[in-house]
């Protein structure tokens, strides 16, 4: 079903339950609008209740007590006003009459526009710029902590190089809290299917929830545990009821609570109970136990069904693409999951570090089945653009991680090595045969 792009105001109004993005200057934060729930943003506590029913893109002030108040609308033609209302002061331009605005001038303007303690907030369209700008805003703060993560320009490459589009079947393995998953789903628009592979107990999707997808999008999303990949490939995946729960822990803990309940009720059932109240309580406990057992059964069945549907999508080995962005060593992940991808389809692997991707590249060359392998990283440079004051301001390089991309082809390892030595530049050709086990063992 198409996500209709109608230009109606009804669609643009904030409701309870919506995921929204708070914006103040260059700082963004994603939150959910909940009844009387305190939200913290930029060192301020406030409630979002007064925003409900308002249009996305509205500006609010925070009053004493934490409630939001509508900020008076500004005149769109008066560019000076728009600067005073909290716009980034980079865009205060020379109006031609004075060559330069001094720092004092700028301060005065700000004071005129902002009254005293007034702080301006803005709720913007719950679109996806939040993810790229959040990354950018985070980058500034996190730089001090020297943390590296998926930058939005790298994410942009992943989505495009992966040819992510509506109607395809994409396998995703990520440990970016669902950010990559959400981005992929957004580009698929609710068409096709996404199979999220997950390590451990269950898939993490918090980041994906923030995208606020309509519910039918979730029907295109499947999940499959990594620990069952080999079974699926070997054709030995057991989809019967007892194997449905990939996580043994929750099962046994349920059992223990069930057992302890039995223990409690047992001694009493052995006694001949005369007390009617006791009888009622026992019946109640019995009923609850049965209810819980029934709920557990339903859940197990749901899980089994989900596993079966994901397996059905995977076992055809005809996925249209593969996206990997995780803290796991990419080489085994890639080699394992590529088996599910059809020939002539793109794959993209993100890694914070370069060496693991070099290994992937080498392995793929040896094994065959992939062409147009490219190991890249991107540099991003922002500019301040002002009359007589235009210059670069921020260079983001290196910290964005690396990408290995390629296209699958019908696998035929032996011939691949012999004929297509022309695939690599001359220098490599001489050494290609020397790819020895020493490289593998040095990993």
């Amino acid at each position: 079903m198409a996500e209709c792009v109608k230009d109606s105001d009804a669609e643009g109004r904030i409701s309870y339950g919506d995921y929204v993005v708070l914006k103040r200057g260059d700082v963004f934060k994603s939150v959910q609008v909940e009844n009387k729930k305190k939200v913290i943003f930029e060192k301020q506590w406030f409630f979002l209740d007064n925003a409900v029913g308002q249009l996305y893109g509205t500006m609010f002030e925070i009053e004493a007590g934490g409630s939001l108040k509508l900020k008076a609308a500004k005149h769109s033609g008066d560019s000076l006003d728009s600067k005073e209302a909290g716009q980034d002061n980079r865009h205060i331009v020379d109006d031609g009459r004075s060559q330069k605005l001094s720092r004092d001038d700028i301060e005065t303007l700000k004071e005129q526009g902002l009254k005293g303690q007034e702080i301006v907030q803005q709720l913007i369209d719950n679109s996806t710029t939040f993810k790229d700008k959040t990354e950018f805003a985070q980058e500034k703060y996190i730089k001090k902590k020297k943390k590296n993560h998926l930058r939005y320009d790298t994410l942009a490459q992943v989505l495009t190089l992966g040819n992510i589009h509506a109607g395809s079947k994409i396998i995703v393995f990520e440990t970016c809290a669902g950010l990559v998953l959400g981005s992929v789903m957004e580009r698929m628009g609710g068409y096709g299917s996404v199979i999220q592979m997950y390590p451990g107990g269950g898939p993490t999707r918090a980041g994906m929830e923030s995208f606020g997808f309509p519910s039918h999008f979730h029907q295109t999303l499947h999940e499959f545990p990594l620990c069952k990949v080999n079974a699926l490939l070997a054709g030995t995946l057991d989809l019967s009821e007892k194997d449905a729960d990939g996580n043994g822990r929750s099962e046994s803990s349920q059992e223990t609570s069930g057992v302890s309940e039995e223990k409690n009720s047992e001694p009493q059932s052995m006694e001949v109970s005369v007390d009617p109240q006791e009888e009622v309580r026992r019946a109640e406990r019995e009923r609850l136990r049965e209810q819980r057992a029934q709920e557990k059964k339903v859940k197990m069945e749901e899980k089994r069904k989900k596993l079966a549907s994901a397996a059905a999508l995977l076992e055809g080995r005809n996925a249209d693409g593969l996206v990997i962005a995780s803290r796991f060593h990419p080489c085994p992940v890639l080699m394992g999951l590529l088996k599910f991808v059809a020939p002539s389809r793109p794959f993209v692997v993100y890694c914070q570090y370069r060496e693991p991707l070099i290994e992937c590249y080498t392995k793929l060359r040896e094994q065959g089945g992939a062409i147009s392998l490219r190991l890249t990283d991107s540099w991003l440079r922002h500019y301040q653009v002002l009359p007589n004051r235009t210059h670069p301001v921020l260079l983001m390089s290196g910290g964005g991680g690396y990408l290995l991309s390629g296209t699958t082809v019908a696998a035929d390892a032996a011939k691949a090595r012999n004929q297509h030595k022309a695939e690599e530049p001359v220098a490599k050709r001489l050494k290609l045969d020397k790819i020895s086990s020493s490289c593998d063992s040095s990993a």
Partner: protein
Amino acid sequence: MSFVEYSEIIQEGDVVIIFQGHESMMPIKVQSGAQTQTRYGAIRHSSDLIGQRFGSKVTCSKGGWVYVLHPTPELWTVNLPHRTQILYTTDIANITLMLELKPGSVVCESGTGSGSLSHSILRTIAPTGHLHTVEFHAQRAEKAMQEFKEHKVSHLVTVRNQDVCKDGFGITGIADAVFLDIPSPWEAITHAKSAIKRKGGRVCSFSPCIEQVQRTCEALLDHGFEEICTLEVLLRVHDVRTVTLPLPDFGPEEDSTDIPNTGNTSVICRTATPPREMAGHTGYLTFATKPRD
């Protein structure tokens, strides 16, 4: 086959990409009875292509072989016939993300040029979006229309042969995003603004020269656009290679009882080196948001 939807089997009329080796690919149109010459010999369309699976190996008449690939906008970008300077995948990827393009988006673009970005946009907005693309040059507009038809995407695009600075995009109030790659983008900002929906949208202007960027930013500001931001993105490709590094010989160790190692005089390393020169400047990307009216 289509540029917006994958298929498995090659059919008559498809555009496919022949992969002959590293950085050597070419697009061909599959026609019954036709032949294509490659460096490894001839490919007979009827027997070698039609009915085969995309991604298969095709043996050519001289005995060598090639791969046949399903077209994608990315493959098209590096293989299309240039009628103008084109946009490459690195810039295209960032434009797509920052204009928030997705299925259903309505996009305005000018100029169409050689259709590199157009194909990418069409892939992203399919099946429910629409691209309104304006090309000043009559022949290029015509060629673009032909290509869209051949690539089975013409239902998603409208090509208009006019001057965007004078006549705009031909539509108003329906676009989610506008993209400009023209010599004087500041002259088209008014039209960009009126093309965008009342509830707001995104705009992007691509310019090789900083002077163009300055004028564009000023125009965007004057028209009430917000979140104006200029950036450039550069892709660095790492060449993976195996290198052999010789080990030094310090002579036999004094206390060592080991047999002196005369065998290993070098170590083989698998590494990656960035190219000597990084990708050149393509252009500056300026983004802005049109707020709700």
